[in-house]
């Protein structure tokens, strides 16, 4: 890596720019996107930086094309990313499914704004959280991370690439307009290429390679185009050879593996952060920008003598279900603030399973909660 390629040091930059820099540090060398508020700055930064580091930036004709170009680039062996927001996220859903089905490492950033439809293009939302999980048709698992600051989105973008390479799956960064547009200090360290994860490559000669035959674990090694493996991959249900097989048995084998490679590795994938949950009667469960307001609210509650704690979901999907289940046995209630009218709260409620109350603190979008709003919910719950 030449000197000018690496941008290290302390910077005052916004979350979108930090995300782009995280991608560069993660070894991303391909970006295909389409302008959309409030994610445009990710694309703009990539259009400046990728040519400097020998990568490719291309603005596609729409988000359908962007997502597909990213998949194509990944199959040519290059780490690839796109970034969008609500309406574009909807258009990308079709090919998130193709990415899952072909087992294609890539990263999709959603700087969430408020919807539905065009909604509030310039203002914050956390309203695509269930779409992130279920937005493409079919039965599948996905990985989604929720950063809380420009520094966090830099760090989590690297994590996202590592997870996508390790598990051969599109990884979603479910950020939001406030994180995307706020400027804060971001420390960009030297990221050694050898510290990054890369997809496993086939160790057998071309004639013996089967694209979806697993050896160790549930994630098969991945060949890329142009190496002589002459493989075939399809969005149709397929067998180990990558050939279409239109039977319930083939479907059963494939879908179980696609889902289980994530579910059975959830301890490796799921990250969360806890503050003062040990003795908490009330645990605020938050993710993304809402976490930072919840931190205030929890401190204010503690100052009033209410035993409150905070569970921050860093990985939103797969959901930290074991941990919420454990916590539901030791706490009285979960308070879930989110900038929607109830999405992740449904998961918390499901996992709490009636052992602890679950209270939604919704915000319809266009702004963030005030700490007092969350504090009030904590107080009411404590009574």
């Amino acid at each position, binding site marked *: 890596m030449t000197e000018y*390629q690496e941008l290290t040091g302390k910077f005052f930059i916004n979350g979108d720019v930090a995300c782009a820099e995280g991608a560069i540090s993660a070894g991303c060398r391909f970006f295909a996107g389409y302008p959309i508020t409030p994610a445009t700055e990710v694309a703009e930064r990539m259009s400046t930086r990728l040519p*400097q580091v020998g990568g*490719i930036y291309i603005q596609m004709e729409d988000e359908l094309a962007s997502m597909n170009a990213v998949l194509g*680039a*990944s199959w040519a062996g290059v780490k690839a990313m796109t970034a969008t927001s609500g309406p574009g996220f909807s258009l990308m859903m079709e090919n998130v499914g193709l990415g899952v089905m072909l087992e294609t490492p890539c990263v999709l950033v959603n700087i969430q704004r408020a919807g539905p439809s065009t909604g509030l293009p310039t203002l914050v939302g956390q309203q695509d959280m269930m779409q992130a999980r279920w937005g493409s048709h079919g039965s599948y698992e996905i990985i989604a991370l929720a950063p809380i600051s420009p520094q966090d989105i830099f760090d989590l973008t690297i994590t996202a690439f590592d997870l996508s390479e390790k598990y051969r799956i599109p990884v979603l960064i479910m950020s939001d307009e406030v994180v995307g547009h706020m400027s804060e200090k971001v420390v960009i360290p030297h990221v050694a290429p050898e510290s990054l994860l890369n997809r496993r490559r086939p160790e057998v000669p071309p004639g013996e390679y089967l694209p979806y035959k697993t050896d160790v674990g549930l994630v098969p090694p991945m060949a890329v185009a*142009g190496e002589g493996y*002459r493989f*075939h991959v*399809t969005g149709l249900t397929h067998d180990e050879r990558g*050939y279409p097989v239109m039977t319930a048995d083939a479907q059963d084998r494939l879908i179980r593996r696609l889902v289980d490679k994530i579910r059975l590795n959830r301890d490796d994938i799921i990250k969360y952060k806890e503050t003062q949950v040990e003795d908490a009667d009330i645990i605020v469960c938050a993710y993304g920008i809402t976490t930072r307001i919840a931190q205030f609210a929890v401190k204010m509650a503690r100052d009033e003598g209410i035993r409150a704690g905070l569970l921050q979901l860093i990985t939103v999907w797969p959901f930290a279900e074991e941990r919420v289940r454990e916590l539901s046995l030791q706490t009285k209630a979960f308070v879930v603030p989110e900038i929607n009218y109830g999405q992740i709260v449904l998961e918390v409620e499901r996992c709490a399973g009636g052992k602890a109350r679950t209270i939604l603190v919704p915000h319809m979008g266009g702004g963030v909660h005030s700490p007092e709003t969350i504090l009030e919910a904590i107080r009411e719950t404590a009574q």
Partner: protein
Amino acid sequence: MIDAMNVEEPSIEKYLRQDRLPHIWCSGCGIGPVAGCFLRAIDREEIDPDRIAVVSGIGCTGRVAGYVKLDSFHTTHGRAIPFATGLILANPELNVVVFSGDGDLVAIGGNHLIHAARRNIDMTVICVNNFNYGMTGGQVGPTAPLEARTTTTPYGNFEFPFNLPYLVSASGASYVARWTVLHIRQLEKAIAEAMTKPGFSFIEVIAPCPVVYGRMNKEPKGLDSMYYYQEKSVIRNGADPKDADLELNGPIVVGKFVDVQRPTLWDHLREVSSRAQEKAKARAKV
């Protein structure tokens, strides 16, 4: 088959996934012969098969990717071109061929088609045009001629069709040709030219769908439907694509319409990238 058979045929078996045969195409379908021309073209031109990537969308022609023993991608409906765009940009050493049908490339994927032509990106698109959605049972497509009968135009098609050579040449393609499936020699040559030419190349192949479209429009059956298209064709190399409209049971203007040298996407992209690197280096020295 046809004349001029004294030339030795290259064996295409080595390029086929024998373990996937027999294929799913109906008897009399035009897609198989086009795939044959493609494979003979890469053999005759001695194009390194390890460097070829075939990308297909959804539909009958979309199944081509699954039968060729090459790196091949069967993607989503309409999205073969953007997938191929990612492949070629990430590895310019690849020779990327998009093989798909009229519905896939021109209806649901129409926007990607014109933008790929506009970019003049290094890619060959082979569009098998059989005027209808065969896979789903013969519905009207964006190239179906006015008055054509399909399962969703039972009283005749009331929409105007696309003239594909005109569309892609106006959008910026460097190479545009149209042949029917029985123009075996010309088609094979066209594919070879397209695959070795820098920039965006587009070949439309008029192909019968005798089971659905042909039956509903009272075309001859089986192999006769291929002869029917061949006999209807008028070779006019160099014709203005705007004069290549197709009408129901009308003449089929075929030939090589466009073969021009234009700077490709790569030409400009390389220049801009090296400029970016020079600037970054200069700044790093300060």
